């Protein structure tokens, strides 16, 4: 078989049963790989009313048809489960080298179910799969456990997926790592993995990926790799990592200062990629087969945290426990906090999200030191953040409340609607460090509509709206209209988001990195189709490519619909739609902007063919995508969603 390995590995930790299931041609053609395979399994096997921490819940790891090949950046893995943070559909993907290794071992997907009696890890040595004792690894940081497993198995070149202490303690936003530092950060599957008493999955793959048409593959890869060399975005990402965005974010006013109270700050350059490279950068890191290499490795040289080392950070990892909680004076505090969230194994975005929400509750007087156990949650109090991160990971004191995620914490503290105003979430998940009032209205729409717990920058990744300056003519080439190439405009954005959500979904199914397709725009849909066909020997077209993404997207949306989430939840935090952007620096470009969500929603619904009343995927579209069974599932739920009793419910999570 070309491209795919053609096999799903299923491990039941309750019974110790290991099964290998063939993935048929029809199945592969319908769902493509990685994200698509995972979403299908989660929809079919994890029902709406099941607790995410129930042993019957699944957690899936998926790779795609081009994983492990010479196409640009083919190391990514999607991790999917029912999210304990949002209670809805949740996935996240990570780079590193584990994904390619899994493919070389002969698998397209791993599905883990059940719960082991004591901590275990899974060891996949090509065909041989075993469940091994991990009691001695429990409580260890990923960096420690990684080394211990490698020594135990006698091979330092294997690749390992691991959770940290936060995952073991079922923190609702714990995450998963591979190669120690590459995190699948969002939606909290680390806790689900921990709930199964699973510490990690070690893989050694000694096979290869077969290429149907090696000459065609060599030609397209040669062309693309040459094209990356002069690409301005590639150069920025290679030199400064994704922290290269800091100064741009500050200029355009999407720098998340104090829980998005502001969008720019005079000290932003303290933590810019340029400053990072000059002061603490030890090494540049590359994920598998990457022509960009945006990964960083940081070594803090001065101050209180001198000597600390860790992989990262990148933009979204650094800003939440930095400027978002008001820390900007000394960048070493920011690097240190990023090191902490890494070692404890928590989503940096959510960690910064809950702490910044708590700081704003504290500022507004909704909570006092009585609730926080004496912690003075003032903006920029680095000492408190340093204390609080381990407290969250180990569920101690006030940390135990925050470990539930921002919206649940707000309810636990009884803060009512006021509390939720400052949580800056939709569907229970915190917004990343991008303010739609500056980053762009397309992004904002995408935050409202994302299928993994609302807000997310990676669902549409519509950098097309930022591309006017770097890539003139690109919008015309992709969307047939150049006007949407500016961030702060609604023109053409509904179609952009619709198109890019589908495009990005298939890109995730291929399991290639979106930085090659959506930041650098060096690899466009025709190129992806070209290498996909060269690898598989099949005859995919651009239309089919987009259709697969649309199918996956509608299935994920249907997952939410199945648990009564629809049009009423298509919102963004009110801060963005009601509070005009204040001035942070004199060169800021977006002062006074508010985000106009409602005027874009209607058009977006039309492109998606979502039902206007419920916001559920439309029946005609579902059938057209071969999802008749989904249409059947949703049919009885439509009237329920519109009933008076449902309308009254305020749903911040599920």
């Amino acid at each position, binding site marked *: 078989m070309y491209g795919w390995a053609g096999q799903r590995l299923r491990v039941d930790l309750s019974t110790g049963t290991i099964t290998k299931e063939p993935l048929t041609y029809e199945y592969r053609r319908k769902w493509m790989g990685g994200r698509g395979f995972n979403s299908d399994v989660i929809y079919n096997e994890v029902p709406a009313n099941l607790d995410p921490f129930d042993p019957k819940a699944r957690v899936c790891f998926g790779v795609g048809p081009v994983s492990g090949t010479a196409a640009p950046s083919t190391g990514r893995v999607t991790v999917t489960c029912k999210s304990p943070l949002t209670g809805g559909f949740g996935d996240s993907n990570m780079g590193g080298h584990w994904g390619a290794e899994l493919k070389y071992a002969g698998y397209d997907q791993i599905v883990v179910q059940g719960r082991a009696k004591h901590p275990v890890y899974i060891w996949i040595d090509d065909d041989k799969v075993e469940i091994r004792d991990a009691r001695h690894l429990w409580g260890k940081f990923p960096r420690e456990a990684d080394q211990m497993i490698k020594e135990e198995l006698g091979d330092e070149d294997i690749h390992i997926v691991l959770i940290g202490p936060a995952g073991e303690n079922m923190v609702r936003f714990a995450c998963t790592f591979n190669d120690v530092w590459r995190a699948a950060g969002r939606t909290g599957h680390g806790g689900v993995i921990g709930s199964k008493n699973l510490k990690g999955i070690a893989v050694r793959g000694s096979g290869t990926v077969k290429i149907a048409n090696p000459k065609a593959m060599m030609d397209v890869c040669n062309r693309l790799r040459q094209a990356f060399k002069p690409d301005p975005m590639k150069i920025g990402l290679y030199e400064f990592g994704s922290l290269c965005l800091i100064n741009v974010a500050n200029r355009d006013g999407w720098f998340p200062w104090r829980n998005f109270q502001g969008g720019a700050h005079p000290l932003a350059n303290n933590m810019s990629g340029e400053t990072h490279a000059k002061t603490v950068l030890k090494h*540049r890191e590359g994920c598998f087969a990457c022509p960009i290499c945006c990964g960083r490795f940081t070594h803090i040289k001065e101050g209180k945290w001198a000597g600390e080392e860790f992989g990262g950070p990148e933009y979204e990892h650094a800003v939440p426990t930095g400027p978002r909680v008001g820390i900007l004076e000394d960048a070493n505090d920011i690097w240190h906090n990023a090191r902490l969230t890494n070692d404890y194994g928590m989503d940096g975005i959510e960690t910064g999200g809950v702490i910044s929400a708590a700081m704003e509750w504290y500022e507004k007087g909704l909570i006092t030191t009585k609730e926080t156990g004496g912690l003075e949650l003032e903006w920029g109090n680095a000492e408190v953040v340093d204390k609080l991160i381990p407290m969250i990971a180990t569920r101690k004191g006030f940390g135990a409340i925050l470990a539930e995620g921002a919206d649940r914490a707000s309810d636990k503290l009884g803060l009512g609607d006021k509390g939720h105003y400052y949580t800056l979430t939709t569907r229970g998940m915190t917004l990343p460090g991008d303010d739609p009032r500056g980053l762009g209205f397309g992004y904002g729409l995408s935050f409202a509509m994302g299928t993994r717990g609302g807000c997310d920058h990676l669902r549409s990744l519509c950098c097309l709206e930022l591309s006017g300056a770097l890539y003139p003519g690109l919008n015309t080439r992709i969307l047939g209209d150049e006007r949407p190439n500016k961030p702060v405009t609604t023109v053409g954005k509904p179609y952009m988001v619709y198109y890019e959500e589908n495009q990005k979904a298939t890109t995730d199914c291929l399991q290639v990195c979106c930085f090659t397709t959506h930041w650098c725009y060096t690899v466009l849909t025709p190129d992806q189709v070209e290498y996909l066909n060269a690898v598989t020997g099949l005859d995919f077209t651009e239309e089919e490519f987009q259709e697969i993404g649309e199918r996956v997207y509608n299935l994920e949306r249907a997952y939410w619909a199945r648990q009564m989430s629809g049009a009423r939840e298509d919102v963004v935090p009110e801060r963005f739609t009601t509070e005009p952007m204040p001035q942070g620096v004199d060169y800021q470009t977006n002062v006074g902007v508010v985000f106009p969500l409602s005027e874009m929603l209607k058009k977006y619904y039309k492109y998606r063919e979502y039902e206007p009343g419920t916001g559920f995927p439309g029946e005609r579209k579902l059938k057209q995508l071969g999802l008749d069974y989904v249409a059947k599932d949703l049919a009885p739920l439509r009237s329920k969603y519109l009933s008076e009793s449902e309308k009254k419910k305020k749903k911040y999570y599920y």
Partner: protein
Amino acid sequence: MSNGKALVYNQEKCTGCRSCVVGCSLYHDGECGKVVSRVAVVRNERFGESFVVGCDMCTDAPCAAVCPTGACVMDTVAGITKINANKCIGCKECAMACPFGVINMHYKTGKAFKCDLCEGRDAGPVCADWCPSGAITYTSPNIAFKAKRRVKLMERLEAAKAGEEG
């Protein structure tokens, strides 16, 4: 060496991305995988360290010296040591003798295989061509060393200057 060029590895720049590995295996074997690559990457993830290891085309090549059948020989004109698969008996002596561990046995044929500088490829060896960080370059070693000499000297001068100012 006819064109005077060789693969020069700069470990300080290696990001460990394995673009070289996938390119090498695709070019030579028409499939992708670490086990069929002539160039290898060693990663120490915990410390953020990566190293690329490939054939240095030794002047006194141990692999050629130990080959019992004359399969592994150095072409002194081209400066390339190559393994003739037809003559190779799969004894692994060359792989054992290589000081860098960059000769491997092919999983399909059981014969030894190694770097041949992508003989015949117009753009030169694919590993250097695809390397995103400049860790692998295909160049005249003497030019590379000359450049390194200058960089290192400047670094020392900078450090001395900073010391004086400090």
